[in-house]
């Protein structure tokens, strides 16, 4: 089945936030963000801005009727700065005017005086100063300390990954309308309607039931609208609350870029020990997460880093320590993979370090240590593993040893170009690691004309969840999918939603739809059995026809619905699903947090131009664990898309803050994401089929896992660079930009004591504001 959204997408008829027809009298907002990354506010002068033609009112923390607080995990994030600013772009005031142009112009007239305080951008420095947002957490398996003695080889090092700008092409925004009984309707581009609703209720000091949050679809989210859509929606709602007028704010790209957080950068220490046979005996990692100025989702992101610190390998002795470090960057946040990729990069760097010194190919170590079913992960979950199966299928399908031979031949024959190959096997846990969030509700209405309306807590953002929900409903009722309409996500219809995140949206909401449909189906069978004078067990549905004892009857779906209505049968159902089996105890850091894991193995080949330092990803081939896919077209799209996004993070996407916390990669002209020419010429995805009852109809989650195949590109580039300059030992510091490639191609012999380049590039400072 094709994506049900595509028809209107290709015609430009899909409605996104900025496309909603505006009511007359709509006002427009624009936020004034702090021009400094850290300091005490001495004076805020709004007078000139207030005089600007068209300005209606300017809001600050003084106007908040409830709490000036929007922190979701930790209550540490003010909506508006009161006395102190903690990052550049932190909202200080919100201008509301009669036009977008006037609001934006008035923002520029606001004057602020700030006594600067020290700006911290490096997570390790923050840790040294004791600036932690949450207490440190440690995962332990076996006994790392005593295991080092048993290792034949021990290596240690540093691995760093930079942030990543979400760059959803639709920027953040919201549109709020006053309703009667002091209620507000909120259109917002968010992955988390309930997060918006509950923080808004706190800020406005009104109950959640007065806030109707509605989301039709997002023009991309990738985690960037999981928690960070909240600010903009509340700013609009605050203005609507006071002015009783519709208020809209759709951020301009540059404002979106400098005022919102990104993927968390990490700097990590690793230590890995192996025996003579290349079995990993012990692994120790310390993660310094750059959380930015407040917790946002960073503690959860960091938790997922710990959950994925050994990627797809079994290691008997593990100690993983994490620090959630407060810096003066905008609060960093969820991004596809949610800390998993950051953790997996470090173990891959450790394996690569060992391979380099031992003179073996990294894939020898990778292959030897893959998870087997029953192996225990550092947090106690015993896995059902397909790691070996995926690896073996990849080896066979792609003839990896032949690929290696071809590359060494190429590298012998060529001076100007070198190729590198890397394998990236993955294992990614599906479920929210916060157990509470693993619940969902669906509301299914069957109307008397036989059409079906489905509401869930799932937000459509390109991942195809609406199509999957329609597939679930139409397949249970055995009706034409065109009879099923997936409604917008709305907190008046579905309450207490979990955000659309953690790759779990289709599973959680799909299971709830399945339950609701089955309830209605049971009632319909009862009606049919009465009409056809048989038992409910005799009734089956097929292609809108009712069958009795496997024999086709005259009774159709629409007739049955009308009959059921006449008999006063309930044709609506609200179902609740909570993932079974999962549990976790953070006190001992043990449990079974994931419903299942997704596996896969990718191989990639990169060609480096050794004169210019540029490179081309020639091919990425993948064997991916689909479970049993219910929608190939959507799943392939998710996988190919994830790979390219991961590849972008590892190659050209470079977030640059200077030491004053000023974002220097602040526009699409300075922050580059993959374009049509950046994708590998060959991108093959082959399915590995497995059984997974915890996935909706057995179709495993595809949202996040494929992103991590992109990590292979980093190691392939590194191998190609080292093939040219065998004196160099490039720092494990992603992204591997053309700059780093060239500097390493021509690097003199590196002393082992040299420190990595910092994640946040130490550029000279620049006072210009965006």
């Amino acid at each position: 089945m094709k994506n049900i959204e595509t028809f209107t997408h290709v015609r430009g008829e899909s409605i996104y936030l900025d496309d909603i027809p505006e009511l007359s009298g709509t006002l427009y907002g624009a936020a004034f963000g702090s021009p400094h990354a850290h300091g005490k506010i001495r004076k805020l002068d709004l007078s000139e801005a207030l005089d600007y033609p068209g300005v209606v009112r300017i809001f600050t923390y003084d106007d908040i009727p409830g709490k000036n607080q929007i922190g979701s995990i930790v209550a540490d994030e003010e909506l508006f700065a009161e006395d102190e600013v903690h990052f550049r772009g932190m909202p200080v005031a919100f201008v509301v005017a009669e036009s977008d142009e006037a609001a934006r112009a008035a923002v520029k007239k606001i004057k602020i005086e700030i006594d600067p305080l020290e700006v911290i951008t490096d997570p390790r420095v923050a840790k040294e100063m004791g600036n932690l947002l949450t207490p440190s957490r440690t995962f332990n398996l076996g006994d790392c300390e005593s295991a080092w003695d048993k290792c034949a080889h021990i290596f240690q090092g540093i691995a760093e990954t930079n942030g990543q700008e979400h760059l959803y092409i639709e920027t953040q925004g919201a549109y709020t309308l006053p309703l009667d009984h002091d209620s507000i309707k909120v259109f917002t581009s968010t992955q988390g309607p309930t997060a918006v609703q509950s923080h808004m209720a706190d800020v406005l000091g009104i109950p959640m039931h007065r806030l109707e949050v509605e989301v039709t679809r997002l023009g991309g989210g990738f985690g960037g609208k999981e928690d960070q859509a909240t600010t903009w929606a509340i700013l609009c709602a605050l203005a609507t609350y006071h002015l009783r007028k519709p208020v809209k704010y759709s951020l301009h790209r540059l404002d979106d870029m400098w005022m919102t957080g990104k993927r968390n950068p990490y700097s990590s220490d690793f230590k890995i020990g192996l025996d003579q046979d290349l079995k990993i005996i012990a692994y120790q990692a310390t993660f310094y997460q750059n959380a930015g100025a407040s917790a946002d989702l960073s503690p959860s992101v960091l938790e997922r880093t710990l959950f994925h610190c050994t990627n797809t390998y079994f290691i008997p002795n593990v100690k993983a320590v994490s620090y959630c470090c407060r810096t003066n960057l905008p609060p960093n946040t969820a991004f596809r993979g949610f800390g998993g990729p950051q953790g997996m990069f470090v173990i891959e760097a450790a394996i690569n370090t060992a391979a380099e010194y031992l003179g073996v190919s990294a894939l020898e170590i990778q292959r030897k240590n893959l998870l087997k079913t029953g192996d225990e992960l550092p947090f106690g979950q015993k896995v059902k593993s397909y790691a070996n199966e995926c690896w073996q299928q990849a080896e066979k399908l792609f003839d990896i040893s032949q690929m290696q031979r071809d590359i060494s031949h190429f590298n012998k024959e060529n001076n100007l170009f070198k190729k590198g190959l890397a394998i990236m096997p993955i294992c990614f846990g599906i479920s929210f690691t916060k157990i509470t969030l693993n619940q969902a509700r669906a509301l299914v209405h069957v109307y008397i004309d036989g059409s079906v309306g489905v509401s869930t807590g799932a937000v459509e953002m390109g991942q195809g969840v609406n199509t999957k929900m329609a597939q679930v409903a139409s397949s249970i009722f055995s009706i034409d999918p065109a009879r099923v309409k997936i409604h917008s996500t709305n907190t008046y219809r579905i309450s207490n939603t979990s955000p659309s995140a953690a790759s779990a949206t289709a599973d959680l909401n799909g299971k709830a739809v399945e339950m609701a449909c089955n309830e209605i189906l049971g009632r319909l069978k009862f009606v049919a059995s009465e009409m056809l004078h048989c038992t409910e067990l005799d009734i089956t549905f097929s292609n809108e026809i009712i069958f009795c004892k496997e024999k086709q009857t005259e009774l159709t779906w629409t007739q049955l619905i009308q009959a059921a209505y006449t008999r006063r049968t309930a044709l609506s159902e609200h179902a609740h699903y909570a993932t079974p089996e999962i549990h976790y105890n953070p006190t001992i850091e043990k449990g079974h947090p994931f419903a299942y894991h997704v596996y896969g193995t990718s191989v990639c080949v990169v060609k480096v131009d050794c004169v210019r330092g540029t490179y081309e990803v020639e091919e990425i081939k993948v064997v991916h664990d689909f479970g049993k896919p219910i929608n190939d077209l959507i799943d392939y799209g998710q996988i190919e898309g994830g790979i390219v996004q991961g590849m972008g993070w590892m190659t050209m996407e470079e977030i640059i803050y200077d030491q004053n916390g000023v974002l220097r990669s602040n526009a699409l002209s300075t922050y580059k994401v993959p374009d049509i020419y950046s994708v590998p010429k060959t991108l093959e995805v082959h399915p590995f089929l497995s059984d997974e009852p915890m996935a909706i109809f057995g179709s495993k989650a595809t949202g996040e896992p494929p992103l991590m195949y992109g990590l292979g590109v980093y190691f392939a580039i590194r191998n190609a660079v080292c093939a040219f300059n065998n004196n160099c030992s490039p720092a494990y510091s992603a992204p591997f930009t053309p700059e780093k490639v060239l500097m390493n191609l021509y690097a003199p012999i590196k002393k082992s004591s040299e420190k990595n380049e910092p994640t946040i590039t130490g550029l000279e400072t620049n006072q210009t504001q965006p």
Partner: protein
Amino acid sequence: MLQFILNNKEIITSLPSGSVLLDFIRYERKLTGTKIGCREGDCGACTVLVGTLAGDKIIYRAMTSCLVPLGNIAHKHIVTVEGINMEVLTKVQEFMNDAGATQCGFCTPGFIMSLTGYCLQSDDFSNEKALASIDGNICRCTGYKSIERAAARIVNTMKHLKNQNRIDFLIEEKILPSYFNTINARLRSLGQKAATNGTYTTGEKKYFTGGGTDLYVQRPEEMKYTDSHFMSFDEEMQTIKVENGICTIGGSATVTALLESAFLKKYFLRNSEFIKLISSTPIRNMATIGGNFVNASPIGDLTIFFLALEATLILTNGVEDRKILLKDFYLGYKKLDKHSDEYIRAVTFIVPDENCFFNFEKVSKRTHLDIASVNTALFLKLEGEKIIEARLSAGGVGPTPMILKKTSASLLGNAVDISLIKKCIMQAMEEISPMGDARGTAAYKTLLLEQLIKAHFITLFPELNFSEMIKSVV
């Protein structure tokens, strides 16, 4: 009053000619299929087609409507996604739909318009060219592979185009709705000559606006209410011609015109490779050579290209012409030897003969649609073995785009060999003063220029033995 046709409707508007087409489409006409992604021409979500009468035909080009001032579209046909929608999906839409080539869908109308533009304009029905038409569209989700598969089917459809009228063919193939064959006559009947649309005042703040691709990134608010003289209506200023060994390029010639010019192709065999490194299709369709020079970016690609050709600018104030060498045009960072009432009427250079060698190199974080970390061009003229003319230009290594004068001079009178190249690099390193910024540290830019100088010679003189030089830094 501005007149143009938007989709199937004649429009007359009194809005300022400096306001941008994107806002007009979305907020005046409420056509919301055209999306806002970045407002700086870097994402392609707002791509529309602009049809211009040329002889008896209309030439359609894809442009990012966020950077198109209304003044530039007078008497043209503007096509948004709503303007191609029919009851059934168009072929382009259908192939995208079949390939599952949409995810969040926000970038989709832009891709649809670029690919429809390809069907309207391209004469090369290869997959490569179809992909080139979407080089300015970013899909963050990122469904490029499925978009590629859709594009391949579009190419196959276009291969059926034989000698018939293209618009008729596209209507028949359900790529365009049928009203398209009425547009030609309707554009002609819009009346008075287009050039009168550009208003020109002698007030303090006046602009000569070419494509607007930089002005509207740098100062969109200011441009909206500024009277501009829109240069794109002077046909003379868009021509590329060669007379008496001199090539003359009109100041308003677009980068696309340079890319497609048969003259330039003849003299610079790799011209299309060079030009493809400059920006993206929709931007190249708007950006002009004069604009690129006046913008004075220290890393302007065309500037670097033409510096090495020792191009001469013909500046004019409408009354008097003044000639100046391009290399003398830049006085300092963003400082030009240009009076406020002057604009670049034309650019000239001596057509290279068979003894001339030319190469252009550019490295950026992303190969396409990115601003260079360093760019450079090398021009050499040989007499026998000896270099008798040499110009090495480089951008990103100083406050202005520059000719490395001493380095260029040091090449004269010598034969090209490895030791000369080393000498050339050493000399170049003394002439540059790169600064660290978002496009690279100073150390990187220094090394990169060294490497790109090597790349010039490797490309132009592949017979030399570079093996020893490649492995080392001079």
